[in-house]
């Protein structure tokens, strides 16, 4: 049985820029796969190649065993695509947008009428079925794009930054919807929201500069890459003096200060006593441990410089 998705040395160059660099990957059926990376990492380029709208410079990828290079049409029968930018037809109503998609997939009308009604119901758009997408909120438009990608019951669903720009309520609603789909299809999504990856994805790959950096479940990545002994400490006075003091301690492996608040990474648990001993009693306002987060892993791996 072929895996849902198999990338073999997939590469895309724009002139001299290598946007995706010899990417290889296997994704099993039924996985919710999350591709994480900062802006410009190459996520969209990768998805465009996998969805056959862009030809790889080198390498190939297989969707359920079918090559995106030589069997594009067959691949497109199997995939649903939610692109980064909504591309709804604003001259068609919500329902007509779905019907057009069904017709392009060659689904006879006796089959699509019911399933389109169900999808509109499921995405909470049934009441607005005859309205134009222009009149929809961002969240509703996004849900309509997702509904459209599901009309032909794809085996593999691609979502490129599905919740970017949505308010928290809409994001959660969309997550709920994606969760209900996981039993029926393989899901491949990109995001730069760590909470999204953490709560949705079974498996995460973090990429940057066209290359995969790490691969694993959220738990695995956190335990493997986030330093476990992180503390937040706030002092009442003499923050500058304490900074110098802490920096001199050999058990402190990393330290950041924002006014009176410190973020300190220690070598091990025993080091905590040494740290506390160095502070005058009564100077501590607050001390607590910090759970390792995916965000920390992400920042450690991709650096802190802002991407355009």
């Amino acid at each position, binding site marked *: 049985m072929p895996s849902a998705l198999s990338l073999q040395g997939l590469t895309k160059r724009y002139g001299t820029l290598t946007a995706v660099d010899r990417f290889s990957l296997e994704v099993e059926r039924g996985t919710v796969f999350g591709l994480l990376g900062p802006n410009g990492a190459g996520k969209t380029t990768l998805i465009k190649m996998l969805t056959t709208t862009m030809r790889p410079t080198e390498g190939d990828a297989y969707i359920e065993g079918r090559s995106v290079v030589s069997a594009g049409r*067959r691949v*497109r029968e199997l995939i649903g695509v939610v692109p980064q930018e909504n591309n709804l037809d604003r*001259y068609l109503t919500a329902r007509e947008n779905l019907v*057009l998609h069904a017709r*392009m997939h060659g689904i006879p009308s006796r089959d699509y009428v019911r399933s389109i009604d169900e999808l509109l119901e499921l995405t909470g758009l049934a009441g607005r079925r005859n309205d134009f997408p222009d009149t929809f909120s961002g969240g509703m438009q996004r849900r309509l794009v997702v509904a459209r990608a599901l009309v032909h019951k794809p085996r593999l669903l691609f979502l490129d930054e599905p919740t970017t720009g949505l308010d928290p309520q809409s994001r959660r609603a969309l997550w709920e919807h994606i969760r209900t789909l996981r039993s029926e299809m393989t899901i491949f999504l990109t995001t730069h929201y760590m909470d999204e990856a953490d709560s949705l994805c079974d498996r995460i790959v973090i990429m940057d500069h066209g290359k995969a950096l790490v691969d694993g479940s959220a738990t695995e990545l956190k335990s493997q890459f986030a330093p476990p002994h992180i503390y937040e400490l706030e002092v009442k006075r003499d923050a500058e003096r304490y900074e110098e003091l802490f920096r001199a301690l050999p058990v402190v492996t990393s330290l950041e200060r924002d006014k009176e608040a410190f973020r300190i990474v220690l070598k091990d648990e025993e080091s905590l006593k040494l740290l506390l001993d160095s502070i005058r009693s009564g100077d501590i306002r607050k001390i607590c441990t910090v759970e390792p987060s995916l965000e920390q892993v992400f920042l450690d791996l991709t650096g802190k410089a802002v991407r355009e």
Partner: protein
Amino acid sequence: MMLRGATAIFWRDLIVLRRSLLSELLAVVASPLTLYLAFGFGLKGYISSVDGVPYAIFIAPGLISMTAVLAAFEEGAWSMWFHRRVQKTIEEYRVTPITVYDIVVGKLFSGFFQGGIKGVAVAIIIFILTPFRFPLAHLFIYLLFIGLGAMIFSCLGTICGTLMDKPEALGRIQTVVIMPLIFMSGIFFPLSSYPPAVLPYIRLLPTTALFEGARLALLSGRGGILPLAILTVTAPIMFALAVVVFNKKIEE
């Protein structure tokens, strides 16, 4: 099913057209009708006939053909540009199992259809204003000309809408290339007005074949073979070109 995608796209364009049909027809009929009134009636006392044909009747077939092919061009150009650059719906079409041919053929149908109904609308009004008689067989050949012309201009529009990223560029092509080509091919004056040295080249233009040929076919039923042959050769070439250009552009 063959051309499933093309019919889906055509279906889409029909729905959209149906919603705005009346206002579109009004807008599209306005300019040829103005020309017709200005030249056909306004100049009535100055130009009585061209080659023995009353001037109003001389220009009528050309105005109808012009409306049809311009509508086809505009539909091809602006809709391709809009779907590609504004709505990005071309991207949506391209992740469904349809082919590049489907998209180009679908747009061709639409351009063809728009040209057809807009041409007919102008024709009806002109015929009401100036009743003139011709045998039905002439009308049939005339429609053949318009059909081929609409196809060529629809493909030309598709090519422009594919290549131009900016709307100004599209507008410019229309005023700098398309309109002169149409006016040069003898809608308002007989080709015999050209200096003899230039005339053979003018006759080779597909637009000349179209407008001059269509008029001759409708009014006299003569001289249709060469222009029809030129158009029959041009149409598939334009279609192939449209497919190649579109395919190349969207692959990036």
